[in-house]
């Protein structure tokens, strides 16, 4: 009798403990998405409400005015989406190929000059010249400012990703290479026909990191892009936040009171929303990647 009571008391205690844990995690999780809910709500709010009552979690008067306004002449958004999409796909495609080729070369034990080559690649993770020489070299030496290339080239090759790929390639079973050699397969065939198909998890993870890196980049545009039509998404967002003239540049603003705040928020939603959702759906690949890198 007593024993049974004690057991139920224990169970109650455990359930209370579990309940508290859920409350804590739920509130931490909510705090992680809350700021984005504020932006979402503001984008569906009335401009006057925001001016009068400030930002709220739920719109006082639900309206899609900001979206109508933006999408009536969506040229700015469409262009920025275009720039970001091109940069992301070209950069990820070329970069992934370049990095996995290098990783393959470094992963094979019978590569001549393997040690100096590894040092050559990974030393750049330890030391770099800093912003000033980089800036002067890109603008004065390579003269890349205000081109799409300046948004692509500097992120093509990330030694840290090469490291991830190399570790993965080095773990592939040696028999593959032996049998490929017996078949008389050349290096390129071994790489494309055996290494690449067998390494899809690693390539997918690194590819996603590349996509995220390009999609979320504002740094290169901040340094090297002055022309408005070359602005990628994130940088366009930054410029409309700091400069309301960027919105007013829209031709159809005459007459209507300018909905600056709500339009900014709607722009933020349009710029992040779709991509953030996709990344969220693919998050297990990211988690896979970061646990591969951070553990052990």
């Amino acid at each position: 009798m007593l024993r049974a009571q004690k057991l139920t008391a224990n169970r109650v205690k455990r359930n209370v403990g579990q309940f508290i844990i859920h409350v804590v995690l739920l509130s931490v999780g909510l705090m992680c998405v809350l700021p984005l809910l504020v932006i979402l709500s503001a984008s569906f709010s009335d401009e006057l409400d925001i001016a009068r009552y400030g930002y709220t979690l739920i719109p006082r008067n639900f309206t899609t005015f900001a979206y109508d306004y933006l999408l009536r002449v969506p040229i700015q958004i469409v262009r920025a989406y275009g720039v970001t999409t091109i940069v992301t796909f070209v950069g990820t495609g070329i970069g992934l190929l370049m990095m996995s080729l290098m990783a393959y070369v470094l992963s094979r034990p019978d590569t001549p000059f393997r040690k100096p080559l590894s040092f050559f690649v990974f030393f750049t993770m330890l030391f770099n010249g800093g912003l000033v020489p980089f800036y002067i070299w890109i603008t004065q030496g390579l003269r890349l400012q205000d081109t799409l290339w300046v948004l692509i080239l500097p992120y093509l090759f990330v030694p840290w990703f090469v490291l991830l790929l190399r570790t993965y390639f080095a773990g592939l079973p040696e028999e593959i290479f032996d049998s490929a050699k017996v078949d008389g397969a050349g290096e390129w065939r071994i790489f494309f026909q055996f290494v690449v198909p067998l390494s899809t998890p690693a390539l997918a993870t690194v590819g996603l990191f590349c996509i995220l890196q390009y999609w979320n980049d504002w740094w290169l545009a901040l340094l090297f892009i002055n022309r408005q039509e070359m602005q990628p998404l994130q940088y366009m967002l930054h410029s409309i936040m700091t400069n309301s003239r960027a919105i007013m540049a829209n031709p159809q603003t005459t007459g209507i009171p300018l909905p600056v705040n709500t339009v900014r928020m709607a722009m933020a939603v349009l710029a992040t929303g779709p991509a953030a959702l996709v990344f969220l759906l693919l998050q297990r690949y990211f988690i896979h990647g970061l646990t591969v890198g951070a553990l052990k």
Partner: protein
Amino acid sequence: MLRLKKSSSESLSAGASAGAANQLAAPHLGAASAAHNSRNQLWRQVRRKWSRLLMAVPGIVWLLIFSYIPMFGVIIAFKDFRFDKGILGSDWVGFDNFRFLFGTRDALRITFNTLFLNAVFIVTDTVAAIAVAILLYQVQRHFLSRFYQATLFFPYFISWVIVGIFVFALLSQGGVVNNLLVGVGLPKVQWYSSPQYWPGILTLAHLWKSVGFWSLVYFAGILAINPELYEAAAVDGANAWRRVLHITLPLLVPLMIINVLLSIGRIFYADFGLFFFVTRGEGLLLPTTDVIDTYVYRALTKSANIGMASAAGFYQAIVGFTLVLVTNWVVRRINPERSLF
């Protein structure tokens, strides 16, 4: 976070090529004829593997253009750089740029802010992440567990530009926080002109963005702990709290030390996006929010003071490099698998 699995890949090396590589590293040690022979061998290898070496060429070219050439640009710090004269043509001025930089109060301010804020970030991130990871572990089989992981990880995908936008929505004149203050009868605060609050605000913003990432790292660390230990402790009558205290935490310490050390190696580099977008570059906030990276950026693009910018950049590169070397040396002594080299 970084590791270079040198030991394991080396053990894979076939004897011949390892020997060749070693001799390449120290050809002068062997007798002249032996060196000659091994060099011949190496060239034969190169000839046989030329198509593989060709695969490395794009990467090598990229590294030369975008990493190694700019590296030599650090000499700008010792020059009076003029755009019309170029890097090589500008006059040498010795340590003048450094004398100017360290003659101002800026040097002390940006060094202090960078070190202090990064140190605060390391501590808060680590403590919060481990706490969240332990909570996640307690409910790992619950159907909500995946939901928690997804929401926690969400900020990782959000760029600093967006973070800056919603911090503005929270802290602006008519922002959420000021509304709350008014709601409980307190006066509004002019957040963007009150530097004293910003170390706290930046810490919260940084925590918000990175706690999900790090808690998943530590969560994976807890999952790697042998479950038999927990079972044995439960049999001995240890409750959940005691199991955390005596099993989870002690066994997480090695992972924690390594991660903290690697962060300390990067302590001289600030997260530019955080300091640039979240503060909206407000001049009034500079006393508590100006860090080396933002200082270099402003000196370069706003005031076009190349001398100061390059001196500060050189200072950061050298101290940063030293810190990476030192912490990596320590990490290697603790866990060679996690060290960079």
